[in-house]
């Protein structure tokens, strides 16, 4: 057993144990997460020198599953484990009042395990598997309160959005395996020429789904229907991060066109999601929109060709966003909801939580010397030096500005006003979780130097100064604007639209869901048609039968004599449009054949001379036919 499994195995075992034992959820889950954290730290220590550890597991024939611990993977594993551990600690407090806890802790652990597997996956099959599994886990977690219709809807929507986008990953993976001839990720990264533009765009599609990029951002906001620790985990280091991680890992494969597309999507998202966040009336939804916006920034960095910047921002964001959510969870318990109308003055009611929240918010806005400052600085620097700087740099800066604005707005709304604050049970656990995450949110910037050194990736230090200045300006400007100017005024005419999540013509549901259902209904109609086709075959038989039956006893007999009557009968057949209705598919056929049978039966008149006449006629016809064949030869 290689050390590679250490981050994965403990939460996996914990998940199984919890789901099977159905007790001791918190203990086991925490143990799993902690061990995972320890394991990933140890792993990081082992691979910090740049070498990789690989573990082969039996998978598909000639496509073994591999787990590869490279420095970046190990680093991400640490991040995942850290966030996971502290979110779980927070959850112990947050979820105290809930029932069905084994399910919660089991799935959370499984979620961690899957994310670790995704991070450490060294082959496409494993990556894809982990990718889908975190989708499943998020479905189960968002839908934890499945009795609530909005939770059930949100879960279904989240899974469906991400899964549809996953098709891109599927096809991209097939193309990459096909071109590299192996399912190993490293091999396809090293392959000459990289992936085609198509594969790159498909990867982007998958990432857009998971990272909630425009126009697939809708599900993320709705996913707030789940428990808040779930949102914390989801948004910071797991589900949503997966998209960005995928692009960071595959960045060497991407062609310039693809990179530009990545950057553009990121840029548009960061602005659009920023606008949405500015208009949100709910804290958690605001944070969700903010997540999309921040991942947009990361995509800008990837698109600019500096995945390192994206990675740094990812790490910083992981700590910051989880902290923000955990604080929001605390507020939620204190006020029974996360709408800003309920949260007025909460900052003053729970100052210690609010302090954590504010610190994290400032970090996210990019105020030095908090971690977000350094990472955002790297992103803006990257945007400035990229070939598409004309597009990406303004978008990145606008995003930063908006980040400041909505965070300031949130801080203002939380600070001002008043409301009834309830005592929060399990507050101690929650506080531990929160502050344990606020700490890295504040201080992670210090670690960026060693990380850069360890990863040995190109950074964008050249334009450093300008970027720092511009970034700082945007952040401060944003904060100021957000604090001073109410959102409707700031957004002007865009505000109502932003309140609807910038949905274009009813949103993605209308654009994809309805056509799909229409096709489905079309297929159902098609089924009816198919049945009708069989029915018509039967009707044909029936019509033939009717032709026969209409010649009843008396008429049949002359028909044998005058074959010319057949024409008349044919005409009648055409005219007889009002077929008797038969409610059966093949039974119509049977009925038709039965009528033919009745016709056949009518020949059997019981009167020997008529029967003999038929025999004689057929014999004569046969004789003539045989003569004719004779003449032909």
């Amino acid at each position, binding site marked *: 057993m290689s050390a590679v499994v250490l981050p994965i195995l403990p939460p996996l075992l914990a998940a199984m144990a919890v789901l099977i034992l159905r007790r001791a959820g918190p203990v086991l889950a925490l143990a799993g997460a902690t061990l995972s954290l320890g394991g990933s730290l140890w792993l990081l220590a082992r691979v910090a020198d740049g070498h990789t550890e690989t573990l082969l597991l039996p998978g598909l024939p000639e496509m073994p599953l591999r787990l590869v611990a490279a420095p970046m993977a190990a680093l991400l594993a640490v991040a995942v484990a850290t966030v996971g551990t502290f979110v779980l600690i927070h959850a112990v407090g947050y979820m105290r009042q809930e029932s069905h806890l084994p399910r919660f802790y089991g799935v959370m652990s499984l979620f961690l395990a899957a994310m670790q597997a995704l991070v450490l996956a060294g082959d496409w099959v494993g990556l894809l598997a982990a990718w889908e599994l975190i989708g499943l886990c998020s479905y189960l977690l968002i839908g934890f309160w499945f009795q609530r219709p909005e939770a059930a809807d949100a879960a279904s929507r989240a899974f469906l959005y991400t899964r549809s986008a996953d098709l891109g990953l599927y096809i991209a993976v097939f193309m990459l395996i096909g071109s590299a001839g192996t399912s190993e990720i490293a091999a396809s990264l090293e392959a000459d020429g990289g992936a085609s533009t198509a594969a790159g765009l498909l990867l982007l599609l998958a990432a857009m789904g998971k990272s909630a990029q425009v126009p697939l951002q809708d599900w993320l906001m709705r996913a707030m229907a789940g428990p808040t620790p779930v949102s914390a985990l989801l948004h910071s280091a797991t589900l949503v991060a997966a998209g960005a991680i995928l692009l960071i890992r595959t960045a060497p494969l991407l062609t310039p066109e693809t990179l530009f597309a990545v950057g553009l999507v990121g840029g548009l998202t960061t602005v659009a999601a920023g606008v949405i966040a500015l208009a949100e009336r709910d804290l958690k939804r605001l944070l969700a929109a903010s997540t999309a916006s921040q991942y947009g920034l990361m995509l800008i960095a990837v698109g600019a060709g500096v995945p390192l910047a994206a990675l740094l921002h990812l790490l910083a964001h992981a700590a910051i966003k989880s902290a923000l959510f955990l604080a929001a969870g605390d507020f939620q318990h204190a006020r029974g909801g996360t709408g800003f109308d309920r949260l007025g003055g909460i900052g003053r009611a729970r100052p210690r939580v609010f302090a954590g929240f504010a610190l994290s918010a400032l970090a996210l806005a990019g105020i030095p010397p908090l971690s977000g400052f350094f990472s955002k600085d790297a992103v803006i620097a990257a945007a400035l030096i990229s070939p598409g700087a004309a597009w990406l740099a303004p978008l990145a800066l606008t995003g930063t500005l908006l980040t400041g604005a909505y965070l300031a707005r949130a801080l203002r709304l939380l600070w001002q006003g008043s409301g009834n604050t309830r005592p929060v049970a399990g507050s101690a656990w929650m506080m531990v979780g929160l502050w344990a995450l606020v700490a890295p949110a504040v201080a992670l910037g210090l670690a960026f130097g060693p990380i850069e050194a360890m990863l040995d990736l190109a950074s964008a230090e050249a334009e450093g100064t300008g970027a720092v200045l511009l970034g700082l300006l945007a952040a401060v400007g944003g904060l100021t604007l957000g604090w001073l100017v109410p959102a409707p005024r700031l957004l002007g005419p865009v505000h109502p639209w932003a309140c609807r999540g910038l949905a274009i013509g009813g949103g993605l549901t209308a654009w994809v869901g309805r056509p799909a259902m229409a096709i489905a209904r079309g297929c159902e109609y098609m089924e009816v048609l198919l049945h009708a086709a069989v029915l018509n075959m039967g009707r044909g038989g029936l019509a033939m039968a009717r032709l026969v039956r209409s010649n009843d006893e008396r008429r049949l007999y002359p028909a044998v004599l005058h074959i010319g009557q057949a024409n008349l009968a044919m005409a009648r057949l055409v005219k007889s449009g009002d077929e008797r209705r038969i409610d059966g598919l093949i039974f119509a056929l049977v009925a038709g054949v039965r009528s033919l049978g009745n016709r056949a039966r009518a*020949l059997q008149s019981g009167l020997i001379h008529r029967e003999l006449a038929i025999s004689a006629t057929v014999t004569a016809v046969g004789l003539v036919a*045989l003569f004719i*064949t004779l003449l032909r030869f």
Partner: protein
Amino acid sequence: MGRDLALLIPEIAVLLTAVGALIAEMLRRPRSALTVAIMGLLVATGLTLRLIGTETTVFGASFRIDMLSVWAKLILLPATVLAMLLARVDVRGTVREGTVYSLLCLATLGALVLAGAGDTMFLVLGTLLTGLATFALVAYPDTDPATEAAMKFFVFASVTTAVMIFGLSYWFGATGSTLLTDLSRVDAAPIAVIVGLVAVLVGLGYKASLVPFHFWAPDAYEGGPLSIAAYLSVVPKVGALFALAQVVRDLPADSGWPTAIAVLAVLTMTYGYLAALVQDNVVRLLAYSSIAQSGYFLLGIVAVGSSTLALPSIIVFAAAYAAMNLGAFAIVASAGRTLGEFGGLGRAQPLMGIAMVIFLLSLVGIPPLAGFVGKFLLFAASIEAQFTWLAVVAIANSVLSLAVYLRIVVPMYKTTEKVVRAPDTWSGTVTLTAFAATFIIGLAAQFMLAGSVG
């Protein structure tokens, strides 16, 4: 002459059995008439066994002792025994008992004469012999339906036989001989050959109840006693079809006989099943089904001369057909004549139900039952003879046949509170024998095929 007679011992034994049964009748010992008849027929069957593999002719090639005629004996003699056991139920205690057994033996003798015919006169005499005996068998209950059936049967038979004789006179004119083998060397008057062919198709077609010469069959089956219907559906029919095979063996193919027979096959199969589909009377239903089954035989006859499988396929199917059809009639004998009387049969008498289902599925041609093996070989033969389209039509008809037979099966398993009497000993014996045969022929066809196919 001595050799020739030695080869004819089974036929002679059948004749003696007929006479023996008649004598027992005259002595007013009907019970022993049955014993004599059954023993005699079984002895005749046993005497035939040593002839397996013989390929020869007797009396100046006018009668053939070959695969067809030997197997005709091995199939038809036991089939007659079974029919006799069924007839026992109908005639027990009546004054006609011995006569009926005797006539059954004579009619079977006629079928055997047909099956071994090597001369046109045997076609005439065989048709007449079976005909005369079976008219009486149909008519003997002396009721309105029975006599009506017999009268129609008689009219149809006499007209078609007369037409056949008239047509056969041209064959004599064309070849100067009445031997079938001489047909192969005719080249002078193909028109005459065609007229003769059509005439033979009329005459043997009536006997084998091929469409459009089948009209007598449903009436005769329905009007006459059930046992006779069972008998008529098997013995004379198989005899006539074997005779047809004997005839076409020597016919030049350019007379168009394969096509003519293929067309008849299509008509017969399709019409038979179509008409069967709308019957409510099980006897009539089985009558039409047996008409359709004759059409399947024609698949093998079409291939005579061009496929080595042709004769074996006809023989195997004949054996299968005899077993499953007699079995089905035996069930009808105990259950009743209308579909209504079959309601709930499967639940009230499970074993009878299973047997009936097996017989009907075998008639459809579901493996691994006898009917499947027979039809399988028939299809193979016709495909080998380049009549793939015919096999396709036959297969389509098999689907139709399924609908026909399911009409009996479906009500059998409906829940109805109904008392169904258990079968009596005789029809029970027949059912059991036919049931065993349906399975054995399906699984052990190799004994029938041994040595006959390369």
